[in-house]
């Protein structure tokens, strides 16, 4: 199926510039309405996780059904580092990313011996294990009670401007936007690098890749590590943004499902598509689905997932964005 107006084709750089430009101006257009900003922060977090998920899926062809595991891990790691070890929230967030990498290697190196579906489901298994650990390691995680009072990132001063993350939604919005830009930029750099080319080769044909000397295992592990780093980082941001964690919210299956919907909907063959998809589906969810169905509004996402994969597998942007020829 071709989306309406699919004659219009732009390069990915142009699409991304338009997208990030619009994001920068959006709060002005909404006159800094805190309700809309809070929805947008959620959309940006989802967008970043979707772009991270797509580093593994879109670049390297490895689908994960368990990114909630990395998200929750990052959230808990950062909260614990900031509250128990007394780290600055900024440093704790970086630490959470590193924890994500460490766990992803622990998970990935054995699992990557498994092909496609087995890998996807092994990751799902690991995500469940991590959630169970968060529930059961009471002394560290507070068990099912969760952790209250996760501190916000310390305020930043730049000249006369102060970004106060405790009080200002706008500050959090721009921080989330910058994180998305960071994740997207890293993904672009990765795609251009040697490792990125190796990932494209593995995606296209794993056996042929191994045949021409591509280190398949190392390539997949790199993709997973980058993906897990940023997913954990975003989980950490989420913890410091909502100030409260429990296993059900931090490891919520939605953190596995929604990035997949966003990435597929936006277009997995592009790097900015998943972010666009995240904004569109969050908008649909808040302003349409949740008003139609109070409970069970995720029904539409299930349908969307099935419809997109059958009738429009290249997604919203996939057919319209030219891949740079590398």
């Amino acid at each position, binding site marked *: 199926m071709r989306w309406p107006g699919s004659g219009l084709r732009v390069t990915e750089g142009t699409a991304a510039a338009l997208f990030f430009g619009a994001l920068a101006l959006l709060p002005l257009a909404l006159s800094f309405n805190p309700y809309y900003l809070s929805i947008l922060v959620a959309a940006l977090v989802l967008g970043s996780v979707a772009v991270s998920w797509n580093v593994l899926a879109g670049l390297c*062809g490895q*689908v994960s*059904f368990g990114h909630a595991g990395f998200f929750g891990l990052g959230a808990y790691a950062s909260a614990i580092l900031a509250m128990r070890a007394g780290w600055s929230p900024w440093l704790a967030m970086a630490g959470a990313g590193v924890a994500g990498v460490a766990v992803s290697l622990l998970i990935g190196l*054995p*699992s990557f*011996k*498994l092909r*496609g*579906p*087995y890998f*996807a*489901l*092994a990751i*799902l*298994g*690991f995500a*469940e*294990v991590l959630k*169970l650990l968060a*529930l*059961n390691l009471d002394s560290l995680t507070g068990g099912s009670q969760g952790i209250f009072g996760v501190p916000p990132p310390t305020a930043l001063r730049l000249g006369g401007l102060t970004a106060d993350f405790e009080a200002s939604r706008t500050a959090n919005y721009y921080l989330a936007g910058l994180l998305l830009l960071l994740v997207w930029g890293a993904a672009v750099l990765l795609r251009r690098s040697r490792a990125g080319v190796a990932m494209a080769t593995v995606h296209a044909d794993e056996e042929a890749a191994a045949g021409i000397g591509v280190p398949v295992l190392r390539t997949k592990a790199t993709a997973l590590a980058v993906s897990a780093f940023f997913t954990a980082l975003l989980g950490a941001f989420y913890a410091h943004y909502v100030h409260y964690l429990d296993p059900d919210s931090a490891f919520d*299956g939605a953190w596995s*499902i929604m990035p*997949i919907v966003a990435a*597929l909907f936006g277009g997995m063959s592009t790097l900015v598509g998943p972010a666009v998809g995240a904004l569109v589906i969050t908008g649909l969810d808040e302003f349409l689905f949740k008003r139609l*169905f109070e*409970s*069970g*509004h*995720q*029904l539409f*996402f*299930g*349908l*969307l*997932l*099935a419809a997109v*994969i*059958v*009738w429009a*597998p290249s997604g919203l942007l996939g057919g319209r964005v030219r891949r740079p020829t590398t």
Partner: protein
Amino acid sequence: MISGSSIVQSLLSGLLEGGNYALYSLGLAFVFGILRIINLAHGEVVVLGGYVAYWTLVRYGVGPVLSMPLAAAAGGALGWLTYRLFLRRVREAPELNTLILTFGVGIFLTNLFLQLWTGDLRSIEVDWLQRPLTLGPIRASVGELAAFGFSVAAVLGLQAFLHRTRAGKAIRVTAIDRDSAALAGIDVERVDRGAFAIGGLLAGIAGPVLGILANVSPGVGGPLTVKAFILTVLAGVGSISGLIAAGMILGVGEALTVTFFSSSYRELFGFTLFLGILLARPSGLFGRRI
């Protein structure tokens, strides 16, 4: 102090539960073995079967044994519809597309159930099935024993169908070599559709058993799918009869984990076993072709 009889009791409960696990997994294992499709909406079809039995009991007073064919038909129809609407269009696409597709169908169904019937836990309560049978300090309910017998019968029945009937043989041949089967005059497209519908039927028939022994709610579909997949891998893809042994290993392991550690580590046993098997012996314990 853990007494000897509580260990025997947990062994027995685990063995019985393991038989049911085999039944809950049968549809997924069958479809995976034949079509190489992991149906991530499998658990939701089981749940649908459970709801069918629950509502026929509550609304019309029809017991779960009688409503079982209805539950099976609902599951089969849903499987057939899923195949007709979506799956046949992505048969040629990469394997992961079918995985994402059925994942989406599962999310859709879970939320549809939630919308239609709320998140309440429903259990099918029939007096004669809950009657306890005791042997010294060991106890089990009539329902548990009947469900176990039914599970074993279902597994053997499926085996017999695959090996003794023309349709079953056509399905097996198509699974082994699609092109040759087509050349031999088998309508492989019809076999695919039929096999997926049978998978749905097998899932649907497990629903009433789930409702009798535990409960049915929108949220149990996902974990059920994961458990079915664990069991399929443990048994070895293509090994239908291996499911019973695999189910018992899982059931007994879980029961002993609860007895010796804590019920909060129950699920951890399954995942550890799953990952251990995947990494150490990906072909499963009884892996061979159907």
